[in-house]
């Protein structure tokens, strides 16, 4: 990469004596790198550290707004661990996250491979494929609500047109969760597609040429060549999706709201109810901290894999 030499100041011979104190600070590597982080740290203190500390301390208190908080030791924690609805919700959330992320990664990779060639109208196709990602989840969840409806929804209409029975996508507790997962998959697979696609575009051509010449099958090429090379990217996307999937809310708000029964009641929904409707902050934060810890563990696992993959790559 060439230096931008379009300025009118001569390249060589700039007086070094004009260094200010700040300039010296900048020159010093150690202080510079922390200086760069200063805004981020300030930001995090206000918006991250405080809420986390608040959550942790409140989880040990009996704090039901508007009453004043009082110390409650491990009461909230005991309640969380024993509460059946918490673990049910956790199970549902885990199911949601695992299925959604796995499907998104697999489907996204397949589509990315499918699109990884030049064809007429490719810009238009790509532009259209990104639409699910950019439309507000809340807005699209409402559209899905209409589509899923068993009386006037288009999906059931299509099913019946080909002779299949009607399906209660959102009212049948055994499939409601999958219906919601489908919305999430629809929304976020494009993200995986584009990230993987970009990664595929950045891969070196030579190994693939060699493989093709050697007559390797598509599957072999994929498993031995493509996959290891895009593994870091897949892991990063998996991590980001994992973290996001735990926080799903907008889609639920527009469709099932935790129902039917409690079949789509995810942890986030439960915490929201506890904290925002019952205003029982002690319990809500205890649940939140527990969830945070679990997500941290899961993400850390992926992170270790990622570091390994980068080193190997």
């Amino acid at each position, binding site marked *: *990469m060439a230096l*931008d030499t379009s300025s009118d100041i001569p*390249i060589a011979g700039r007086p070094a004596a004009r260094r200010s104190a700040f300039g010296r600070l*900048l020159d010093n590597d150690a202080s*510079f790198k922390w200086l*760069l*982080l200063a*805004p*981020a740290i300030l*930001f*995090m203190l206000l918006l*991250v550290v*405080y*809420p*986390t500390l608040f959550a942790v301390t409140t989880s040990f208190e009996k704090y039901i707004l508007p009453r004043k908080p009082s110390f409650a030791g491990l009461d909230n924690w005991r309640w969380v661990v024993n509460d059946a609805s918490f673990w049910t919700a956790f199970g549902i959330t885990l199911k949601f996250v695992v299925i959604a992320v796995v499907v998104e990664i697999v489907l996204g990779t397949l589509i990315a491979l*499918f699109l990884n060639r030049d064809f007429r109208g490719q*810009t238009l196709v790509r532009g*259209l*494929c*990104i*639409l699910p*990602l*950019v439309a*507000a*989840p*809340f*807005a699209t969840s*409402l*559209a899905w609500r*209409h*589509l899923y409806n068993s*009386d*006037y929804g*288009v999906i059931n*209409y299509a099913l019946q047109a080909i002779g299949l029975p009607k399906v209660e996508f959102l009212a049948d507790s055994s499939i409601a969760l999958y219906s919601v997962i489908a919305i999430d998959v629809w929304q976020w697979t*494009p993200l995986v597609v*584009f*990230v993987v696609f*970009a*990664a595929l575009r*950045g891969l070196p051509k030579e190994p693939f040429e060699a493989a093709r010449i050697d007559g390797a099958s598509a599957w072999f090429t994929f498993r031995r060549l493509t996959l290891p090379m*895009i593994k870091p*990217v897949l892991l*990063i996307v998996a991590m980001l999706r994992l973290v996001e999937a*735990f*926080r799903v*809310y*907008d889609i639920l*708000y527009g469709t099932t709201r935790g129902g039917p029964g409690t079949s789509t009641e995810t942890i986030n929904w439960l915490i*929201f109810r506890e*904290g*925002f409707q019952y205003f029982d902050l002690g319990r809500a*934060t205890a649940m939140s901290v527990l*969830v*945070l810890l679990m*997500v941290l563990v899961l*993400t*850390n696992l992926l992170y270790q894999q990622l570091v390994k*993959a980068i080193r190997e*790559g």
Partner: protein
Amino acid sequence: MRLVIFWAGIALLVFACVFPILWIVNLSLKPTELAQASPPAIFFTPTFEHFAVAWRSANLGPLLVNSVIVAVGSTLLVLLVSVPAAYSFARYETSRGHLLFMILSTRMMPAAAVVVPYFLIFRELGLLNTHAGVILAHAFFNFSFSTFVLYGFFKEIDPNIEYSAMIDGYGRLEILRRVIFPLLKPPIAVVTSFSLMFSWNEFLFAFVLTRTDAARTVTAGIEQFWTMTGIQWGPMSAAALIAIAPMLVFSIYLQKYIVRGLTFGAVKR
């Protein structure tokens, strides 16, 4: 034959992606009595009345303005904070990855737990029902994603370029200005796009932290068509369409940047 399969695949893909959005358009133009008709009406004489109703009822004009202010504001804030931070992580491995991981983990806290302390802080600072409050909340969201993506990009930049510039006598700021910034355009475009998009589409915090139309965003404003006599599909879809239309148009341009730039720097060339 393979060509047919290929194009069929493309058609299926595009259809799956686009259909729900087309359906929103369909619902927004459909006369109210057909909204819940069975079988679903695909062809009908369209009416534009829902847009008028939605615009008036939900006061969408000011809401759109709010959405723009919040999206732009939070994106600027995010860039301000994450660009230097990502650079620091990439070039110096500051804190050896721990701080970076912590930044990623900021998104792991369930939103419900974050809402209440935010509400309390913002109340103290007088930021409730203001643009600034929602901007801060959105900046919080996008910060981790931005930092991560930019980290990947910065890692791509060969440090030798900077070293040679330093040897040539350039100061730090000069290097940043002349060497780094020009390289930053693609990744910043990517991060800006995503940040604007996430902020525009965000529902929960925008809904909770605002009380009146003074600061409410358009995405939060769709909610009010869920009335006692049922969901008003027409006006709600019209409002939803108005809410997502800017992003749809915007994304036609956005995909160029994503395709060009998203490698996270983790793929060795």
